[in-house]
């Protein structure tokens, strides 16, 4: 049974879908996600998994590299945000963060790499409840 949403404990880009990439005038790029799984903590080691639409806004973009076969059903295999040599957990992107690169690999082998200065993830409000997850994240 669903309870009140607790605080976000984890943002998991694996298996999400990028439905739109927009390179805007200037130096910004936005990635619009579907099916981005977010774990909300209910109690210790008990989480609700919600599926969100979300927008990742990257500013100060220099290099933008994408090679892809375009398929509507493709999914994100892995997505990493680097801050220098370190990786930033996606949950930290819910507040504006300094970032140096976002690197995404897709299930079909497509790759996206964006060199940037900041990254900010905004969750949309129309989330869909998926399931409860019990255990450590």
């Amino acid at each position: 049974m669903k309870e009140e949403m607790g605080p976000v404990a984890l943002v998991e880009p694996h298996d999400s879908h990028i439905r739109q990439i927009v390179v805007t005038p200037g130096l910004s790029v936005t990635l619009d996600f579907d099916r981005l799984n977010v774990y909300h903590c209910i109690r210790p080691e008990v989480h609700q998994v919600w599926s969100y639409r979300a927008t990742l806004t990257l500013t100060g973009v220099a290099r933008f590299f994408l090679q892809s076969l375009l398929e509507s059903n493709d999914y994100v295999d892995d997505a990493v945000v680097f801050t220098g040599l370190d990786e930033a957990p996606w949950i930290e992107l819910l507040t504006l963060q300094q970032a140096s690169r976002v690197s995404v690999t897709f299930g079909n082998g497509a790759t996206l790499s964006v060199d940037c200065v900041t990254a900010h993830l905004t969750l949309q409000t129309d989330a869909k409840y998926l399931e409860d997850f019990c255990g450590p994240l």
Partner: protein
Amino acid sequence: MTTEPLASDIIGTFLQLPWHGSELVGFEIGHATSAQALVTFDIVFHAAGSPDEPTEVRFNEARGIYTDIDLLAKRLCSDHIASGYCQRASDSEEAFVRGLDERFDLYRGETMDGLFVFGIDLIHPAGEILVLARSFTLSTGSSMVADTA
């Protein structure tokens, strides 16, 4: 009744556009329908009589994209385009196009027939964009300028 556009019409219409010195303002990669990918460029064409408002170049039934651009260099070069080109995908020597079936899995039985490579080179060192698609459409505001679909 619908008819397939002639390849020479698609290539000729694209090549006739005044690419050199025009501006690539921005672009989008998304999905027109659940089954169809869509790539659009916003271009300000600079030619005698051209309006300064952006023209949307919409690539229909887009099947692939390769882009390696430097947005900072693009801005420093005033978003200017060096050239645009178009050819049948089956004739392309571009490594991305030639390697599509090796790097990615095309649908079973799918070939490059009917697909075109639409390319834009930005002023060096800003980079390039290639789109693999079946046709393209131009529109300004609410009016259609050209449709090769």
